[in-house]
């Protein structure tokens, strides 16, 4: 699943470690989500969206809408 996590993180000047600490996950998890290797659970996706004050669909692209 595509997402804007990397650009949103860059906009705030956060490193992957900073984001991992804010989400209370490992840096490994942040990398996996950013690269689209891992689709987070709904609770973690909500947590990510809430951290950036955005709706889930503003962070993650629905697979049905991916071109």
């Amino acid at each position, binding site marked *: 699943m595509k997402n804007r996590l990397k650009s949103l993180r860059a906009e705030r000047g956060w490193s992957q470690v900073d984001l991992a600490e804010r989400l209370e996950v490992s840096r490994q998890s942040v990398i996996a989500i950013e*690269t689209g290797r891992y689709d987070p659970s709904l609770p973690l996706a909500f947590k990510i969206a809430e951290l950036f004050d955005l709706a889930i669909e503003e962070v993650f692209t629905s697979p049905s809408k991916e071109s």
Partner: protein
Amino acid sequence: MAQGFAIKRYNRAVVLLSIAYVVLLISALVVIKRAGLTGPLAYALAILPALPIIGMFAAIGLYLVRESDEYLRLLRVRQALVASGFALSIATAWGFLEAFDLAPHIEAYWIAVIWFAGLGVGSCVNVALAARQQ
């Protein structure tokens, strides 16, 4: 996130269980093999080295339950599944070779050793899948 609480507890458990295993194995070897102990006490003593190994399986299970990082949990579950498939496949194949007198008999506890080696195979599978998905 620094090294998680769950993995720290798991690592500590593995160290303690490894020490217990060495102590119990040496004790069983000395008392049963060298002193020639027989009877019910020998059975009880012979089973003791198995207990820390069983404890390691329990420690892995507890780690999976306690791990709060869902991605790390996914990796470890996949690693354990690969290890299980690896060990069971070798045990099954070896069993048939033994049944047809084409391979020597090996003690069943080697399946646990192969399972732990399978964790290494599982780790390689995780790395390979991660590389393929990039």
